[in-house]
């Protein structure tokens, strides 16, 4: 009898400690540093998987992962490519549809990823942001960066130039421990 209780207690203890450590891992910030034990560290946002999107949009700017913005943002963006932040970026109908489908199917509100959830939470329901850099999540993560590191840095120039500092950005990895600011070196706060 006592043995049974002892075994039961031990099993309980293991269960509790396992769930506690699970919660602790979940409590870590979304950069996923606690994922280390699972082999390859997970990306912070799903990588780009559509060649057409990468070729067409990625020609002029970093091919932002669709998980950065909600569906409504991508719909609005693709509906007005004649004035794409001041540039004409029109595409033929077939290409445009393929890209919109891809963006929509992988948007922040379609993918259950920690990073996308954080972005989504920072966007008020009634707004439809077109610039990732204007989401509260983005500004919160970058507010401490002085101008000389980004806008006034000839090797960076713009916050939209993700991969110039986030060395693994193309893989969907925006982990701050892998940030290297050109001309300034590692950035890790």
């Amino acid at each position, binding site marked *: 009898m006592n043995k049974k209780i002892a075994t039961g207690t031990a099993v309980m203890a293991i269960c509790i400690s396992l769930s506690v450590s699970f919660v602790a891992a979940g409590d870590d910030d979304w950069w996923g540093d606690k994922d280390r034990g699972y082999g390859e560290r997970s990306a912070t946002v799903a990588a780009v998987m559509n060649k057409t999107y990468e070729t067409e949009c990625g020609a002029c*700017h970093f091919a932002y992962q669709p998980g950065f913005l909600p569906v409504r943002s991508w719909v609005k963006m693709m509906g007005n490519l004649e004035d794409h932040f*001041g540039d004409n970026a029109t595409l033929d109908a077939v290409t445009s549809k393929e890209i919109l489908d891809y963006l929509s199917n992988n948007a922040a509100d379609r993918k259950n990823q920690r990073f996308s959830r954080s972005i989504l939470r920072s966007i008020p329901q009634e707004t439809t942001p077109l610039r990732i850099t204007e989401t509260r999540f983005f500004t919160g993560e970058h507010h401490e960066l002085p101008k000389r590191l980004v806008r006034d840095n000839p090797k960076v120039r*713009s916050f939209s*130039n993700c991969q*110039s500092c986030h060395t693994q950005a193309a893989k969907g990895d925006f982990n701050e421990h892998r940030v290297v600011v050109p001309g300034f070196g590692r950035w890790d706060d």
Partner: protein
Amino acid sequence: MKRIAITFALLLLAQPAMASDVIEELLNSYRAEGAAAFDGKRGKTMWQEQHQQPQLGKAVSCASCHGTDLTQRGSHIKTGKLIEPLAVRTNAGRLTDPVKIEKWFGRNCHWTYGRACTAQEKGDFLLFIQNY
């Protein structure tokens, strides 16, 4: 024997287009549109010509994004994104896809000049880039 012949034929088909062939083909189509003799020097001059762009509030040229040395990478004037070199001798993939060439003439002429390029201008640009 037949199999070897077929393999050979497939290999030939798989060969990427040569820049010189693609350019010749495009130049011919520009001639058909009424262009006169092409001149790479004129292309070079146009490359650096500044055009006021109202949207940006400043003057821009092809070099604004592609740079003045075509063997080097350029960077997009607004986004800062790196653009691979245009010179065929440092970037063998350049000028090998007529559809891509036309597409970028379409986009970039509108961006820089605010209008489409003429057949003459496109030919001059192509020669300039090819012989860089």
